[in-house]
């Protein structure tokens, strides 16, 4: 029995298998509409995350399965003080697979030690969100047809953004990747990522402060939100805030085949005027996220 707790739990080969299956599902979705018939997914969401929960639920329903669960800890027996092991053992008696979101870091890992059924980490605090990483990887593969020979720009809050850290780790397993890390100095990528991944694996990267200085080089632009409260002083915020907003003018500097991604939800870091540009791929990314979750459920349930 396999769980998905950390984005690196799957080898490159296992990921490729998953992505091929997701491709097949997109090509002939009808053939997969009953593969999870009589199977139940439990979504245990100890904190609300409507987007992720709906993606999992839609994935299971499209596979012919059914869904049970809760969407906040106030509406569950957690309020009565039930431990994580007791909850997963109970729910594992009803359901065939569990997707768990929890505000505490490491909670899904702890749960997986006791779960009688496969368990998916649907986000644990600021720690890991492996199905977002699968979504990002699958989107890149769909749009570019490959993972190698790409220049990838990561823009915004690179210090606290867990999706960015996981994506760098996951992409570091492929060849000829170059990263351009675009952020204010306060929000640069943590030192341990530079040391343990980028330097350790000899992956070329540059750090720049402004998006307009780097956008022309990029094949992929991964946008994240920069929050005002993350800046140390107001002066820097005012000086730099517009650098991290993607608009039509900045996009004019970019390649024609750039793909703009975003883990969503966005606030103002991508102007609405960009949405109609063919390079804006973040809503495709959402859809690919559902397909890759379908493939993941199939593989963990071993129904195909």
């Amino acid at each position, binding site marked *: 029995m396999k769980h998905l707790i950390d984005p690196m739990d799957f080898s490159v080969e296992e990921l490729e298998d998953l992505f091929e299956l997701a491709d097949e599902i997109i090509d002939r979705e009808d053939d997969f509409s009953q593969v999870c018939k009589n199977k139940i997914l439990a979504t245990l969401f100890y904190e609300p995350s409507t987007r992720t929960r709906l993606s999992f639920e839609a994935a299971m329903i499209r596979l012919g399965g059914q869904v049970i669960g809760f969407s906040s800890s106030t509406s569950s027996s957690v309020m009565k003080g039930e431990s994580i092991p007791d909850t997963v053992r109970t729910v594992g008696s009803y359901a065939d697979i569990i997707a768990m979101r929890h505000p505490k*870091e*490491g909670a899904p890992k*702890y749960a997986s030690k006791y779960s009688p059924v496969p368990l998916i980490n649907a986000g644990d605090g*600021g720690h890991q969100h492996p199905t977002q990483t699968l979504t990002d990887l699958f989107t890149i593969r769909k749009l570019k047809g490959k993972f190698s020979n790409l220049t990838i720009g990561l823009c915004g809050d690179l210090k606290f953004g867990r999706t960015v850290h996981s994506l760098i780790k996951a992409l570091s397993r492929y060849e000829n990747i170059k990263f351009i890390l675009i952020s204010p100095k306060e929000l640069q990528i943590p030192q341990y990522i530079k040391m343990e991944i980028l330097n350790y694996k000899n992956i070329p990267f540059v750090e720049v402060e402004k998006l307009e200085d780097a956008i022309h080089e990029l094949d992929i632009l991964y946008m994240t939100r920069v929050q005002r409260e993350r800046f140390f002083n107001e002066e820097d915020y005012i000086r730099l805030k517009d650098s991290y907003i993607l608009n039509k003018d900045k996009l004019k500097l970019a390649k024609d085949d750039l793909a703009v991604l975003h883990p969503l939800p966005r606030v103002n870091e991508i102007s609405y005027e960009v949405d109609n540009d063919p390079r804006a791929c973040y809503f495709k990314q959402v859809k690919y996220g559902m397909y890759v979750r379908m493939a993941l459920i199939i593989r963990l349930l071993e129904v195909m």
Partner: protein
Amino acid sequence: MLYIDSIQRGIVIDHIKAGYGLSIFKYLKLDEADYTVALIMNAPSKKYGKKDLIKIENTIDMDLTILGLIDPNITINIIDDEKIVKKIKLSLPKKVEGLIKCKNPRCVTSEERDIEHRFVLIDEDKGIYKCEYCEQIYTWEE
């Protein structure tokens, strides 16, 4: 030089980094012992210049692997009939379970009852551990 009698039967914890002897002494609760114990601090050492050492006139039955976490250079000599019958060289334990606590307030260990705090050694040279759950990085000095 200060002279301390050799022990008949017991344990000598040697090559403790100078300054750490007292914390080990306390950790092993030797300050509460009713048998002969000696804590020697700042003894001359060929290897380290100065060292601390502890002599225990008793056979204590305890898990001494934690000492490897404090300082892997520590050596433990088991004494019988005033002779060293066994030398134990410590190394950093690969896993540390239930001995130290994760300090990350966002870690699941901060909330769940009965959860065992577990750490995995990720860098032997630098003595770096990570919490098995939240992956927060720790060195022993912390």
